[in-house]
């Protein structure tokens, strides 16, 4: 009897003290809870939908939508399907996101560098900008630009006029639209050739520098190629570009590109708001490069520009990129605030009007969330690839 107990005890502690047994137990409990929760949700949803007479499935995407949308990048009218409203909303979201990312990045880098300027006034002004803008809700800023600023602009007849080509009034911002004529293909070809030539030049210059140590002025020559080649092509093809300049017709402007006030307000607010965060990211990135690095670059005899380009910025980018990615993601997600002022983005058009008209809540919400999930993953992917390219390789 006694022998048996001593034999069984080396098998370890009692099973409920064994970390492996415990972890398996907890995981089974977790799976059971999630499965039970999920099953309850699905069951409830199905029975609720049945009792309310809501059909399921994606058939509604082919039905006619029957509502107008004030701005669409893809052809659209009220007779088209809900599937088409989805594309209208998606392209509008992508447009304002892309515009916002570009503007916020440029502005953010400028303000971030200005914050570190040795000019006291410039540094303080950027500090005030950052502290004011980022502590005020974005939705309020969108309302401010839309209801307080843009809707108080003069009517089309008294438009603010910039050089007779750009007009600003309470109906929007009117820009001249470039119309490509026959033969413009030559210019596109020239641009592609120029890009290829500059890429080739860069590899050649690097090879030569590795072999002989001589530095070729790649940037200046490359810029010259990028400008000259398309210009020559443009002139030799007989200047195949015309501008459609907006003009007052009756009560409103016609022609050109129109930036509706909803888009303008959303763009301005998103860019200014995100820029205040990017500025702080840029500042922390630059400050993270230790002073010794700059001093070492100076000691090597590198001029200011080169030491910035070859020593400071590559190390700063390593710190800047990950949080910058998050800011881009935030900007895309924040563009959904468009709903509040009526810019027809994905959420407003699809999750708003389409959902209300069809009642297909589950499908519409699922599609919308899947779209945002995809956009977020794509941005993370591209930024991670870029991050890997600029990361400092340690061996």
């Amino acid at each position, binding site marked *: 009897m006694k022998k048996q107990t001593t034999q069984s005890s080396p098998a370890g502690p009692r099973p409920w003290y064994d970390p492996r047994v415990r972890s398996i137990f907890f995981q089974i409990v*977790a799976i059971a809870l999630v499965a039970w929760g999920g099953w309850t949700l699905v069951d409830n949803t199905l029975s609720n939908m049945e009792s309310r007479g809501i059909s399921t499935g994606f058939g509604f995407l082919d039905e006619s939508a029957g509502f107008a949308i004030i701005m669409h990048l893809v052809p659209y009218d009220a007779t088209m399907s809900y599937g088409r409203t989805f594309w209208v909303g998606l392209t509008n979201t992508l447009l304002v996101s892309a515009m916002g990312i570009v503007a916020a990045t440029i502005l953010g880098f400028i303000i971030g560098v200005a914050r570190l300027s040795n000019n006291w006034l410039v540094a303080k002004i950027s500090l005030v900008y950052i502290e004011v803008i980022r502590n005020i809700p974005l939705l309020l800023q969108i*309302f401010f630009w839309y209801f307080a600023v843009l809707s108080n602009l003069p009517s089309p007849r008294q438009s603010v006029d910039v050089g007779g080509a750009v007009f600003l009034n309470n109906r929007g911002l009117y820009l001249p639209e470039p119309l490509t004529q026959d033969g413009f293909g030559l210019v596109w070809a020239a641009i592609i050739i120029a890009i290829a030539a500059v890429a080739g030049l860069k590899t050649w210059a690097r090879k030569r520098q590795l072999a002989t140590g001589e530095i070729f002025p790649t940037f200046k020559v490359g810029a010259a190629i990028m400008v000259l080649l398309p210009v020559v092509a443009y002139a030799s093809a007989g200047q195949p570009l015309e501008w459609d300049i907006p003009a007052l017709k009756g009560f409103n402007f016609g022609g050109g590109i129109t930036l509706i006030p909803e888009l303008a307000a959303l763009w301005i607010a998103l860019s200014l708001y995100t820029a205040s965060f990017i500025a702080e990211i840029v500042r922390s990135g630059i400050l993270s490069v230790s002073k010794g690095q700059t001093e070492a670059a100076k000691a090597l005899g590198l001029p200011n520009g080169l030491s910035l380009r070859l020593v400071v910025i590559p190390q700063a980018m390593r710190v800047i990129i990950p949080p910058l990615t998050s800011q881009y993601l935030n900007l895309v997600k924040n563009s959904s605030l468009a709903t509040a002022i009526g810019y027809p983005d994905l959420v407003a058009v699809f*999750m708003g009007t389409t*959902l209300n008209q069809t009642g297909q809540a589950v499908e519409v919400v699922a599609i919308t969330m899947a779209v*945002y999930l995809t956009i977020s993953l794509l941005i993370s992917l591209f930024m991670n690839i870029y991050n890997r390219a600029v990361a400092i390789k340690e061996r």
Partner: protein
Amino acid sequence: MAESTMKPPKKTLGPISWMRQHLFSTWYNSLLTLLVGYLIVTSVGPLLNWVFLDANFKGSEPGDCTGAGACWLFVSQRLNFFIYGFYPDELQWRVDAMFLLLAVAFVPQFIERFPGRKWLGLFGITGLPIIGYFLIPGGLLGLEPVESTKWGGLMLTLILAYIGILASLPIGILLALGRRSDMPIIRGLCVVFIEVWRAVPLITVLFMASVMLPLFLPDGMNFEKLLRALIGITLWQSAYMAEVIRGGLQAIPRGQYEAASALGLGYWKKMGLIILPQALKFVIPGIVNTFISLFKDTTLVLIIGLFDVLGTVQSTVTDPAWQNVAVEGYVFVAFCFWVFCFGISRYSQNLERKLDTGHKT
């Protein structure tokens, strides 16, 4: 001997040399200074005029706004609505009492050496919500009930932010621990939860809470709109919180985990006594950033028809009786948010300095 009579060097002290160093060190700095200075002079003067000198403070009707500047009468006339929403006038003392308790609990946190400061803070995160639970909705202890549809204004904003912050921190900690757990299934569930919530905009979450949650629940069980919004905000924000805390957990050296295990501490003791105190201290700035963004994001509830402070202002700026008062209303809301957000961020910087035990250089 001539050396001893040498005068001290000029141009290194005094305002002139300060300006020479900080404003006019190079030609482009001088140009920048002049440009920015010009912009400031031309914008600050009119701004001050608008806000103070030409503004209208006296009177009670729209017609009393005769000056060229801001019409603050609009804000002062509607202040009651902006702060309390539709909360009944005679019961507003309950909200006032909560405001007072909130101030008693948190204002001393900014004052070093205030007696019993820690206890007041502890009361703020334990006792205060319990008192609020009885006081604001009423219905118990002989207090007249006030439905949540009548709550609004600044008071609703603070309720949303306060409960959101209190709930999202512990949920975020649990999610972060789950994501770093050795158990693959629990880790996977946490990763999916965090990534999905973080990838979708808060608006879609709020839409879902207001449109889809009723579909998910069994018949007869229904939450109020406010509670649904609160659940959405909290879950969304706790996913962000989890990532911040994960960063802190990753910054703790392996040796700390191993030392805690060597002492024979179990999982929860190891985390609660050794790892989390250090990890949370590391990421105070990130946690506070999340709090601040949650505070600002509470404004989004106006999209699903709740009247937070921005919602109350937005619904009145279009009142035909008052002309062009949108800017005044927005400035008021901006000021409310700015004071809170700036205060929180300053407090966190203070806390960071105080808790710094020399881990950072």
